[in-house]
């Protein structure tokens, strides 16, 4: 093979120059990492979760390190969508990469309103709809844990924008496939998974929870097996592109996700181990393709499912 292998991939209507994004909430509005590497090298940036109004977030401490994992209870600290559009978006548009805006609401209407506002803004590749927010109307359970509420939010967002919709699923559910199916039926173009697992840590010396908020979201390598399992299940049942995240720190992790069925991946907590890891992952994928004489990364999407089909005797001709 003489041509260099292609990393280009398509999440529905959104073409990414490579499948490596950075995950919402871990990359701020990109300006922090701009000093460290050229953001344009990334497949895309998922910006920090936005809400309609500015939010102060949760009381500190907000971080607790756990075995191969990280608990965070940031609580969606953000300047609100309006200041985002004014102060951050112009700069983001010029980064030379796809910008995916992550939105969160506390009522379905808030989600709809956010979509409506952002729909008018040029230069966005997609909206990522974070349905892991507590549903204040329904007593605090998050929208993402019930198919009905997840679908309701998706539907309202769908009605308010023609931007591609990536709905980001919560892993804290009994049946991820049911939720995935519900939001796809309600108009999601793609699914992002997974958000953080709900967890906590206790300081035995202080005899109290480490986090000011008691509970936090678990991310990082610890959660990778759970993320892969959910992606595998959704890939088998729900025919939309998937964007995978949860514990990716190197190109082999990225390959696990892609082979489980994702069209793209995002690095979140991995940035904190090594801020250059997304670039190293891109390089690693490139080398892997070259070594195995694969022309394009898209050949590998869902590749691990083939072995299962073979085992079941469903060999592809």
């Amino acid at each position, binding site marked *: 093979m003489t041509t260099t292998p292609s990393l280009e991939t398509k999440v529905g209507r959104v073409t990414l120059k490579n499948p490596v994004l950075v995950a919402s909430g871990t990359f*701020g509005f990109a300006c*922090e990492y701009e000093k460290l590497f050229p953001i344009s090298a990334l497949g895309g940036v998922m910006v920090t979760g936005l809400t309609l109004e500015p939010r102060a977030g949760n009381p*500190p401490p907000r971080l607790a390190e756990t075995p191969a994992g*990280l608990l965070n209870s*940031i609580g969606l600290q953000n300047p609100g969508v309006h200041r985002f559009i004014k102060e951050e978006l112009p700069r983001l548009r010029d980064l030379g990469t796809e910008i995916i805006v992550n939105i969160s609401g506390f009522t379905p209407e808030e989600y709809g309103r956010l979509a409506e506002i952002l729909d008018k803004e040029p230069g966005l590749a997609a909206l990522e709809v974070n349905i892991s927010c507590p549903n204040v109307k329904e007593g605090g359970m998050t929208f993402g844990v019930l198919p009905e509420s997840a679908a309701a939010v998706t539907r309202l967002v769908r009605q308010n924008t023609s931007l591609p919709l990536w709905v980001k699923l919560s892993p804290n559910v009994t049946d991820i496939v049911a939720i995935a199916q519900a939001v796809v039926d309600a108009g999601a173009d793609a699914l992002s998974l997974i958000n953080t697992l709900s967890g906590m840590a206790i300081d035995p010396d202080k005899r109290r929870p480490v986090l000011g908020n008691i509970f936090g979201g678990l991310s990082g390598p610890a959660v990778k097996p759970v993320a892969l399992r959910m992606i595998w299940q959704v890939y088998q049942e729900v025919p939309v592109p998937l964007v995978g995240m949860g514990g990716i720190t190197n190109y082999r992790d990225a390959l696990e996700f892609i082979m489980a069925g994702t069209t793209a991946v995002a690095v979140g*907590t991995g940035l*904190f181990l090594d*801020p250059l890891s997304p670039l190293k992952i891109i390089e690693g994928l490139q080398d892997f393709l070259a070594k195995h004489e694969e022309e394009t990364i898209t050949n590998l999407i869902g590749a691990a499912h083939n072995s299962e089909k073979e085992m079941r005797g469903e060999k592809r001709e």
Partner: protein
Amino acid sequence: MQPESAGVISLSSLGQATGFYHLVLAAPQIAKESSPGQFVMIRCADEQTLDPLLLRPLNIFRFHPAEGRIEIIFRVVGRGTAWLARRKPGDSLSLLGPLGNGFSSLEKYRRLLLFAGGTGMPALFSLVEEERKVGSPLGSPTGAPRGGHNREFTLFYGARTKDELVFLDLWQAAGVTVYTATDDGSAGFHGTVTKAAAGFLPGNYDFYCACGPRPMLRTVQEMMAGYGIPGELCLEEAMACGVGACLGCVCETVHGYRRVCTDGPVFPAGEVKFS
């Protein structure tokens, strides 16, 4: 600010019982860019392990742009610092830095008060040394202050016990008047730095800088506010990214939550809210 692979030049224990170590690193880029009160983050784990996961923030004790070196003082408190204490000269470490917003310029002030508690000392020393460096070609504070300015520094330095009061000679060499305090009374005042300082205050001080454990900072803040002396506090908070992206390291201030890693670690004393 950038990732830099730094070589260990030396690592020495500052007394077995203390758990304190003195680390000298070859990190030319970081040395060049550093300013007092900034810190680095160091990956304190074997390359291929994912636990512990996060980099460890450590203040820069001294930086030597000409020699391309930085120095760090750390105490072993957990597995990250324990790993770091096992390094050997010649090993290489992954660093990210210099990070944070250090102390502001002291230009306006003549008589300064410093409060250091335990591993809060290094940040303050970098401040004094930088000050004294001006006019000195090598920058090592040997003998009397050689700085272009005639700023006066008084340090109240507290620790749990005598052995944890480290590098007193350097402070003295920098021409700083040092008062010590220990929890166990093994050296200097028997009690906290703030109690030790109370006898000297208000004095004729223009400004203060403090770095140490939270309870100390809170008392210092209260006390100095009482005397109407302005100052700056250098804070610590658990960190993930170290560059301002994750919003994990916030502290409460009069302006709401601010990031210790980028808005700080040094804040105007009057802005910090201890809850």
